[in-house]
């Protein structure tokens, strides 16, 4: 039997809600799959979606972008900017033929430790079923940095 494919998941999370929520998952000792690597930014508004593409290019098979729920942003409105950009980015990626099942946009608050574990597990399972994301890396080409 072939060894189970273990996808690489990169998560872009804001410091105030989702990072704190993931801390709470830890404090509550809720277990989840270990495929995710978290990148902390102050706010989802800081996320330049070029970073998401860079992560896919560098070998990520799945992406999570998560911040504060609407209205709850520590910086008032950064999450709205993130969401607005996400809508445009998503459309553009669809046109380009990027498989959007690879990229999940979500909200996880600082109180939602269990939700973080659930989100990571859902994304990991979905991406595992999809297999390695070689298509994007082939299109972009190995020489592009």
């Amino acid at each position: 039997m072939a060894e189970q494919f273990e996808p690489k998941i990169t998560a872009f999370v804001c410091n105030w809600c989702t990072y704190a929520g993931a801390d709470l998952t830890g404090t509550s000792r809720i277990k989840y799959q270990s495929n995710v690597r978290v990148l902390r930014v102050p706010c989802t508004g800081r996320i330049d979606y070029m970073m998401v593409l860079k992560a896919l290019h560098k070998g990520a098979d799945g992406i999570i972008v998560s911040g504060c729920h609407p209205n709850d942003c520590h910086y008032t409105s950064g999450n709205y900017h993130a969401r607005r950009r996400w809508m445009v980015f998503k459309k553009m990626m669809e046109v380009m033929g990027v498989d959007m099942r690879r990229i999940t946009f979500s909200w996880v608050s600082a109180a939602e430790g269990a939700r973080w574990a659930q989100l990571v597990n859902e994304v990991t399972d979905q991406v595992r079923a999809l297999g390695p994301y070689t298509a994007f890396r082939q299109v972009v080409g190995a020489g592009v940095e």
Partner: protein
Amino acid sequence: MSRIGVFTCHCGENIGATVDCAKVAEMCRAIPGVVHSVDYKYMCSDPGQRMMQEAIREHQLDGVVVAACSPRMHEPTFRRAVSGAGINPYMCEMANLREHCSWVHEKGEATTNKAADLIRVLVEKVKHNEPLHPIKVPVTRTAMVIGGGVGGIQVALDIANGGHKVVLVEKSPSIGGHMSQLSETFPTLDCSQCILTPRMVEAAQHPNITLMTYSEVEKVDGFIGNFKVTVRKKARKLDEKLCTGCGLCIQKCPNKKISDEFNEGLGTRTAIYVPFPQAVPNKPVIDMKNCTFYKTGKCKVCEKMCPTGAIRFEQEDELVTLDIGAIVLATGFKLMKTDAFPEYGYGKHKDIIDGMQFERLASASGPTSGVMKRPSDGKEPKTVVFIACSGSRDRAKGVPYCSKICCMYTAKHAMLYKHKVHSGKAYVFYMDIRAAGKDYDEFVRRAIEEDEVKYIRGRVSRIYEEDGKLIVMGADTLMGGEPVVIKADMVVLATAVQSNDRSEELAQTLHVSYDSYGFFAEAHPKLRPVETNTAGIFLAGACQAPRDIPETVAQASGAAAKVVGLFSNEELTREPIVAVVNRQAAPVYSTCTGCFLCQGACPYQAIEQEEIKARDGQILMTLARINPGLCQGCGTCVATCRTKAIDLQGFSNEQLYAELMTL
């Protein structure tokens, strides 16, 4: 070439039991740029920190990654430690091996590999870190306390006695909060108003305290030490300076049948009213919804009666903007309404009341002057059933938590009832008796043993009316679930404590976190219980979780101590996590093209337009400039900038892309 040290912490067993820390340390030695990598049992301990400092000196490290707990926990600790060894504190980063790895994954190779990966990400980041220096900002030494209950009053008095100005904002016409509604308090049975009203007066007369009653916080801008708070002063329809509080207007108001909020609907009031006789300030308000003048355009009896001409029908709400250095939230709680209980008749039976209504019935200042009369017919209830945990610890009601105060106040209520109606029978249905606190258990024992209150361990499934009696159907689980039927004259539900109305809205206005029940979240459940995650905003009392009076007052004094401590600084230092627009030599000046998309994205109005002028004064170009005093470091402008002219210190493009390259 960077010289980076990696320090992997076992955190006792917390990390060490799941992650092979020695192996992680060894793996990290292979990362380019890492010249020193060790593991240690407790990195945050004194010997741990000393070991780190010695290593920094010995190996001439210029960057440090501490792989331990969450940076939200110990980043300040380790930044202080590395700066003690002579390197810039912002050259230290933390990899979160505990909350994000060892506590959430099973022991094994994958977990150890993840730990090493997490460190690798941060090592690459540190390589691109720049030494940063904290930003100094002035402090406005005026505090705002939101909520004028016992907690808010205590905070205000403590800060004011510490020599600082306080603005106490209360949404209702008087300060005093729920405590002013209580009859007696547990476990001493001293009169609530007797101990509270002197405090209310003291707060009103204190030279350092400004009361803003009948007012609500509308908008909060700025940051620790420098908040700008806009408060809506709702129109009392009264010139407070002229009003002497004589009360003639209240006596003569023809509209006397309005349900009284202070008496929880058990009494009536007039359209122009003060909530209760000891109200502070003792100045009436006109209830526009019920005032005959606002409904029909005629009446104005109060205006005619007022000896000082203080009534102002045309008065409008006023918005006041204040400079505030620190904010304390003390907005309290509300009780779940009895109509949330279909099994107890949806609050339709007049004689099924909640705990606060019982307080008003028992209070000497209440609608019955403290005489036990049931609401429906005014008769003395001979049998009263008290039901604890009405809604609390009940997932079906959305309140899985314990409301904490009900066990004690139910014992108090039963006791007060027995003191007033000696021949009466009092039954308490309970799940558990939670009486942890000084003299608390003794108090409950006293209710059971001296006052002969009958405690029945079990739930009540249904209450219905039959022949003028309330039939309470329960079970006694200590008798093997034996059904118990009691014919009662009155039933008191100890309904659940819930977060106050509009608390989520207020949290969003102040940018503080709240839990799924609407209670404000503390910065750390054990070590920072009175702080929020937003610097300069503190918590006191039941707005954070259900609390009794002693706890509220203790927490209020704790919050006040935090504020006074904050105000003892001449100026504050702020994290230098701010955005900067790059500047280059002439004739390029900057890659900023002056499109100012960033200005629209900035939530803090921190982006200014800067004109670059030639010697003859001609404007060459207009560039964005970020005011570091206003910038909070969210980085939204950075992602908005088309030409990548803006970068965020501490989370720069270089740093984040370097992190991504390790994946």
